[in-house]
């Protein structure tokens, strides 16, 4: 019995380190290859030894698919391909291919910067890894090999994020990656067609949440920044190089323009330029509004946001600075934080989650006295704000997507167990499908219907074409033929060809129907009356009265017999072959109406 097997190595009842193994139709696919930023040792990567024990990685895995550029989805990729030794194809969308190396490089630099980690992937490894990438377009069906095909769908979430359909024969799995079902300031909403996969693997970050309007969060954010700037304070927004940063930049840029504000906004490390370049390049991936206004004004060409210079941090007066990295765990953002932390007029806004072991985590948990290097204590007097701008589908959105795709089964990943449990029940109740939520390392096995390929004979196809109907993928139509199995292969052929190939003779099949006629005359006379009546009605057909008293119309035979119990009634036995089914039915209905009185 064919089956689909799914084993999360990461993201099973867990957020971080997404890595899901799927076996479908004898093919093995790895969905995402993320890292966990909460660890500094090998635990940051998924435990690939569970794959390597199956033999050589490149032999075992048919491909790796990356859903989007966030590090919890792609951070382990160079390690996996250049250090563990995977040498096969890696699929991702064009924007992800462009942005992924920037974030990987950023991450590498931070890791090396922080600790001087020697046993870490290098820039060259990131580049070599990216050379194994095959970029795909949305809705383009890509053949990984003769049997395995994949197709990307728009997922919102971040630029280039995609859901992937993986198909082998008639079996298919859809993996959503992270997605967003409501459009945001620069991206559209996720969409998938009614592809009815055997299994939908969906993220469930906000499995129990109905998120408040993003507008409210944006308003809050702007209000807080504005207030801080108005009172002459400096605002630090730690971000990762690309992604959420751009959304916040658009937000501030528009607000600054509208309010005619003068305080400078800076973006550290010169990444705005790069980001602009990619947002311009992949304008088709952004939402409709941005695309429409692009002709008049490029949303990503910021008038108010300038490149940051390290010396600017000491400048007097208010300012807003976007600085990397996003969790205040090294580099520029941490340096600025240290400088500004002591002034209560200043503010730091954390726009995302921070793992333990970072300054970001500390201040978000309310700690205000931080031990720094050399036992120095840094007192945090600046205002600390947390605002999640992450773009995930909430419970309503997840249900909406399940409704759109109409899967046979659902599997939840990228979420917390307790919340998943709630959503699982909801999905099972509403959609009457099985819903699974495996933990990391647990395998879910789904039996599927066997897929049997059937060849079609040229003769049959030609005959179909001769009817003048051209094939149309959108309007499937029925094709009649005979299914034969020969040499373990199935073929659909015409019945004549089937008989010929199989060396069989055709069986004659006749249908017989009894029609009761009220006629006290003898059987021969009744037959003659039937003959006369049919002769007059069926002028185009060959109607004959045979010497034995029976009547024929083409292949249809009509015989009259006396009724065993009622001598005033005659029984007409009408019999025909299945080729003359139409005429036979007509005759029967005609005779059932009775014979005209005048008929002799």
């Amino acid at each position: 019995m064919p089956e689909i097997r799914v084993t999360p190595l990461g993201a099973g009842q867990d957020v971080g380190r997404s890595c899901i193994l799927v076996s479908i139709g004898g093919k093995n696919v790895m969905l995402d290859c993320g890292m966990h930023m909460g660890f500094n040792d090998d635990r940051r990567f998924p435990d690939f030894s569970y794959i390597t024990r199956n033999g050589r990685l490149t032999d075992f895995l048919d491909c790796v698919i990356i859903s989007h550029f966030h590090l919890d989805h792609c951070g382990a990729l160079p390690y996996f391909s250049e250090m563990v030794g995977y040498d096969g194809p890696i699929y991702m969308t064009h924007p992800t291919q462009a942005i992924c190396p920037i974030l990987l490089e950023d991450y590498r630099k931070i890791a090396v910067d922080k600790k001087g980690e020697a046993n870490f992937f290098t820039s060259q490894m990131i580049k070599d890894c990216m050379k194994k990438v095959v970029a795909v377009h949305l809705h383009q069906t890509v053949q990984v090999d003769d049997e395995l095909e994949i197709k990307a769908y728009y997922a919102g979430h971040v630029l280039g994020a995609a859901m992937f359909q993986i198909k082998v024969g008639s079996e298919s799995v859809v993996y959503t990656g992270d997605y967003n079902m409501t459009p945001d300031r620069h991206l559209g909403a996720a969409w998938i067609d009614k592809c009815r996969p055997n299994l939908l693997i969906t993220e469930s970050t906000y499995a129990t949440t109905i998120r408040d309007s993003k507008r409210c969060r944006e308003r809050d954010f702007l209000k807080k920044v504005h207030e801080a700037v108005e009172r002459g304070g400096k605002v630090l927004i730690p971000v990762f190089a690309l992604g959420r940063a751009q959304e916040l930049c658009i937000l501030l840029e528009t607000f600054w323009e509208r309010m005619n504000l003068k305080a400078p906004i800076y973006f550290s490390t010169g990444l705005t330029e790069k980001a602009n370049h990619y947002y311009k390049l992949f304008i088709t991936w952004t939402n409709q509004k941005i695309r429409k206004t692009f002709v008049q004004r490029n949303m990503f060409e910021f008038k108010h946001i300038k490149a940051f210079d390290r010396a600017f941090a000491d400048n007097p007066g208010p300012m807003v600075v976007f600085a990397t990295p996003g969790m205040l765990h090294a580099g520029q953002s941490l340096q600025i934080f240290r400088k500004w932390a002591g002034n209560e007029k200043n503010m730091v806004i954390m726009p995302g989650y921070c793992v333990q072991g970072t300054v970001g985590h500390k201040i978000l948990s309310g700690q205000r006295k931080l031990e720094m290097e050399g036992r120095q204590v840094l007192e945090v007097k600046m205002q600390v704000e947390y605002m999640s701008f992450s773009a995930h589908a909430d419970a309503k959105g997840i249900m909406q997507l399940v409704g759109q795709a109409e899967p046979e089964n659902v599997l939840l990943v990228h979420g917390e167990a307790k919340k998943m449990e709630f959503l699982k029940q909801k999905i099972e109740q509403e959609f009457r499908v099985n819903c699974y939520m495996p933990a990391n390392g647990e395998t879910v096995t789904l039996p599927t219907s066997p897929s049997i390929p059937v060849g079609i004979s040229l003769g049959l196809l030609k005959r179909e074409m001769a009817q003048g109907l051209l094939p149309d993928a959108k309007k499937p139509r029925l094709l009649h033929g005979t299914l034969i199995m020969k040499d373990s292969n199935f073929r659909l052929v015409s019945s004549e060809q089937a008989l010929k190939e199989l060396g069989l003779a055709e069986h004659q099949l006749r249908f017989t129907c009894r029609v009761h006629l009220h006629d006290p005359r003898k059987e021969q006379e009744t037959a003659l009356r039937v003959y006369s009546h049919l002769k007059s009605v069926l002028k185009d057909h060959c109607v004959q009265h045979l010497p034995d008293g029976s009547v024929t119309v083409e292949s249809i035979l009509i015989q009259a017999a006396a009724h065993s119990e009622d001598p005033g009634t005659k029984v007409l036995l009408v019999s025909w072959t299945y080729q003359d089914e139409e005429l036979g039915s007509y005759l029967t209905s005609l005779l059932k109406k009775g014979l005209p009185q005048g008929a002799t």
Partner: protein
Amino acid sequence: MDPECSQLLPALCAVLADPRQPVADDTCLEKLLDWFKTIADAGSSLLLLQENPCLVTLLCPVLKPQDLSPRVLAFLLRLAGILAAQEDCFQHLQQGDLLPRLFGEAGPLGGAAWTAPTVRSGWIQGLCSLTQHPSALCFLAHSGAVDTIFSLQGDSSLFVASAAGQLLVHILGLSMQAPAEGHPSLQPAHWPACAQKIVGHIEESLRATATPQVTQALNVLTTMFSHCHDPWTQVLWVHLSPLVACLLEKDPVPAAHSLVDLLLSVARSPVLSSSSCGLWDTLAQTLSRLRASQAGPLALGILKLQECPKALRAQAFAVLLQPLTCVLEATTQAPGLPGSSGPGLQCGVAAIGPVASSEACAGRGGDPTDGELPLAWPPGSVGGTADAPLTAGMLLPSKAACVGLLCQTLAHLELLQPLPQRPSPWPWAPLLSAAVTILRLCNGSATPTSDTGTHLCAFLAGCVRVQRAALDFLGTLSQGTGPQELVTQVFAILLEYLTSPDSSPTVLKKAFQATLQWLQSSPKPSGGGDLEPHAQLFLRELLPVLPKRLCSPCWDVRDSGLEFLTQTVRRWGGQAGFRHALLASEVPELTEQLLRDPESYVRASAVAAMGQLSSRGLHIIPASPGHPGAQQKSLLEELLHILSTDSEGFPRRAVMQVFTQWLRDSHADVAADTEHFVARVLRVASQDLDWEVRAQGLELALVFLEQTLGQPSSSCPYAMTPPAAAPPSLVAQALQPFCRVQLFDFAFRALFDCDRPVAQKSCDLLLFLRAKTASYSDQQGSSSGPDVASLEAALQRWQAGDQGQPLGDLEPEAVVAVLRSLDLEGLRGALAESSDHAEQSPLSLLQDMLATAGILGENEADCY
């Protein structure tokens, strides 16, 4: 334990024991366990418990597992295991009857919490930690835990199942340690009860009809033979090997992959190597029983063994070569197939494997069990001589199987070739022929006429996977020698791939790599100097192809082309033939254009290539007689422009590497005015936002220092090292150039850079300088003066995080004085620690966990 941590621990234990206070970050508990493990490893766990009674209190809630979250429960099980690893602490916990309640029936086992894999995993890991002493074994025996471990081998979680297998091995090893004094009993029936039970379970599993059970048993044995090399393992193998051999009688052989792993782990075990224990027969039998794809890894494993009977090696090599033999057999039937007339193929497939001896060519084979391996034809690898003649149909039943098997074989041979224990002599020529043939089948240039050949052609045409594997293997084969005709074919097929518009970017990259390997291994002609004529001809043919690749719309192709160019120029840039061909091509011009490529990776590679071309004097387009060297100057300007303006780090870093190399090599352009060059580069590099560029700037500064002052331990007669008793004026003179290029401003500022590697580099540089000027400092007692004061003030500002203005002109004397006053060793020590060591410390972890407990829900994990 740190007193501060000890103080916080009770509060944390209270939080953990409170089900209403879940822990926010799932990494915290892991890190907490790491910390407890470190403490337990360093001292007494009993003392730890006695000093921190809250830990015992913490373990008690496990008695009501339904109240706890699975991850806290798993944490407690693991913690108990870590603490109970020491026997006295184990006894202490036993007295409180805590352990049976944690790991026995009364605990989470069998309850609702048991459905969570994390709890089962915690249970196993806890037991694994505590099973370190005889008391633990008694505990396991009485608690019935071993039976639970047996059942967990088939757990739905890979992690749990795998850990259960490992735990069984651990318990078996420990229980056998006690009676191990002296020789182990030859009968496992006399082994300790716990060991007997486990061995009995393994036996039962090996006899099972269900494959998963067999797999579990084989995996446990594999782990055991891989990690435990005590004498009793030999007894165990003797005892179990008949059961293992029985598996080979089944059709199909169950759990083939695990069986291969087991047999190889047994074969590698030093305990078993002295005695065959029937192992070699089992291996030989397994080789012949398994399908080609299953037998390949076994064959490779056998050939990697240090000691092994020759006959078995011969058989294994034949199995490994089977697919290639099959390919050649199928294709050589086709008249006109390239390579079929080559010397390596004159006897067709018979030439592969055991090298073309006349006996092998005749296909007679002989007895593989005697004589040297390469002279014997393995039965079954060539049609006609073996009991079960091999047909292409058997090996290549479908496209997927054919592709998979060929890739696997090529990868195995690639792994085997560099090993000293590879079969000898290594059949270079036939392997080369096979690799070339496969590549020809893949690109459609082979035209076979036989059915099998046609089949293969259809399977392999355009198959990127096989192309990649074959090119990798072909590259590795460059290490050996082959007949000239075959080498010609190798270069021809490589050129075809490099030229073909159908070659995918990944294939092209591999083709470039293989080409480089072949070029590098080309023998130098006897006269020395230039390239071997053959390779020279090839390069001449390749150079017109390269521009097309440099103009490819795919960035990765352009980049691979540039990387190839850089390597070739580095290697043959000095050879006349190559220089002539290169200068006659469009390559230098195109490379220069790629400095402005939209893709930063390509720009960086173009910078490296141009740097190399320039070093070799190869990018000069003949300049007008009036302006010699005009082109070189413009390149320097162009690279400086990239360094100051490129928006991305890769090209800027590449420029710094080129400049540093130029400085090291005394590139003509640099040597013309080194000081001016260094000053310009440092001015730009010191302002760079990318810390790697700044660090490279310091590297360049260090090279400049070394060149000026001499290596730390060198005795270069030309270096301007101030002698031990040098008069101050000489030292000042020696340091004057560094002041002029503003090196000190950069280095002192970098000492407090927010990016640690920059500060470390600067620290190293200043320490080097201090060592060089030490003698002078000793003589100069004074460390005062206006310059010194302003420099020290600036250093304090920088340390405080202020950027401030440049220092302006510095006097060497002030520099020397400040160098002496700075605690550079202390700074270096501080910098050696991770920049987040404070946040990653145990105290910080405890503080974070306590701080988070109150605010959970507001700040949930979503994504990064």
